[in-house]
């Protein structure tokens, strides 16, 4: 078990090598904390998701920033899941505004448990509303179980383009190491890395069952910085209603 844990976290740490740390203009884009995706798709799946990131920092321009994403998603079959997000932000001393939208497609590549590692891939398109900035991203998703522990790794490559931004190719990664304690309560740890972000911190997740197909999946985490450009605290919360 110890060697497996070491191997999993080695992967995420190796990824740090070579990532830049220059600052862009929009402070929202400095924080890569979001969520860690699993590779699984269920047939007839429908869900509504609310995702909140709130960050605080000693730098006034990076402090008190709220990001909110609301989405609706559904599966086409037992392999493909489509999801559309509306994204809003509140910058320091400003009111909450609609920032952009995102369309996402997740494809489950292997059956859960078929191989030692389960695989999936996610394609994303995100577009800002007020500026000509867009992103195309591909994320490779891997998940593996070691007894009561589950490790999930997301490796992404994104291309930013538009007339309000210099075209750029960026890499990002996130990882989660979670203990399957109870269905409604699973503690874990998460790691995030991108052009600006290096963050790590505890996370709690769980599933609460309702009647019939109704299910609520929740996640809450607190990510602390590992470098100077990551906000001092990033609180993240996710609530997903599956029906």
């Amino acid at each position, binding site marked *: 078990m110890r060697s497996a844990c070491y191997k999993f976290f080695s992967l995420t740490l190796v990824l740090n090598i070579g990532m830049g740390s220059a600052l862009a203009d929009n402070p929202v884009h400095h924080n890569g904390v979001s969520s860690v995706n699993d590779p699984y798709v269920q047939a007839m799946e429908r869900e509504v998701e609310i995702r909140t990131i709130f960050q605080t920092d000693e730098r006034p321009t990076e402090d008190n920033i709220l990001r909110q994403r609301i989405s609706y998603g559904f599966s086409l079959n037992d392999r493909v899941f489509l999801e559309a997000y509306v994204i809003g932000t509140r910058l320091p001393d400003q009111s909450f505004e609609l920032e952009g939208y995102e369309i996402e497609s997740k494809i489950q590549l292997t059956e859960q448990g078929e191989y030692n590692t389960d695989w999936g891939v996610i394609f994303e398109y995100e577009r800002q509303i007020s500026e000509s900035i867009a992103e195309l991203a591909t994320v490779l998703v*891997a998940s593996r179980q070691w007894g009561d522990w589950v490790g999930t790794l997301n490796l992404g490559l994104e291309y930013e383009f538009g007339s309000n931004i210099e075209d750029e*190719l960026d890499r990002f990664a996130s990882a989660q190491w979670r203990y399957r304690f109870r269905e409604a309560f699973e503690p874990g740890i998460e790691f995030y890395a991108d052009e600006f972000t290096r963050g790590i911190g505890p996370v709690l997740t769980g599933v609460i069952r309702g009647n019939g197909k109704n299910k609520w999946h929740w996640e809450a985490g607190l990510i602390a910085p590992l470098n100077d450009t990551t906000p001092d605290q990033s609180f993240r919360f996710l609530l997903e209603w599956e029906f």
Partner: protein
Amino acid sequence: MKFANVLKTLRHSLVRASCLLLLFALASTASAQTPVFEIEIREHLFFPAEFEIPANQKVKLIIYNRDPTPEEFESYELNREKVIVGNSQGVVFIGPLKPGEYPFFGEFNLKTALGKIIVK
């Protein structure tokens, strides 16, 4: 950003990602001799509702849903969930498991669709 720089970044990213994924997927191979077990869903019941599988070995479950309505094979203990639409079949891989009893249920018919896998 110059096209050459994009290509350079892309090349470096692919090499790095390939190395990481190679490490992560070590021993990520399916067994060629995975035992197969079959169960059926009929009138919101599992048949058989209890069955034995070998310990410390991966097994493949083929679940036939004979009902016209969908069912979700689910088990927190097995860490598996699989929706099987009506009049179709689904595949679930489980294990390797330690000896013990692992309950499963049909999420869309919680009162009737109940079962247990006994690992020996």
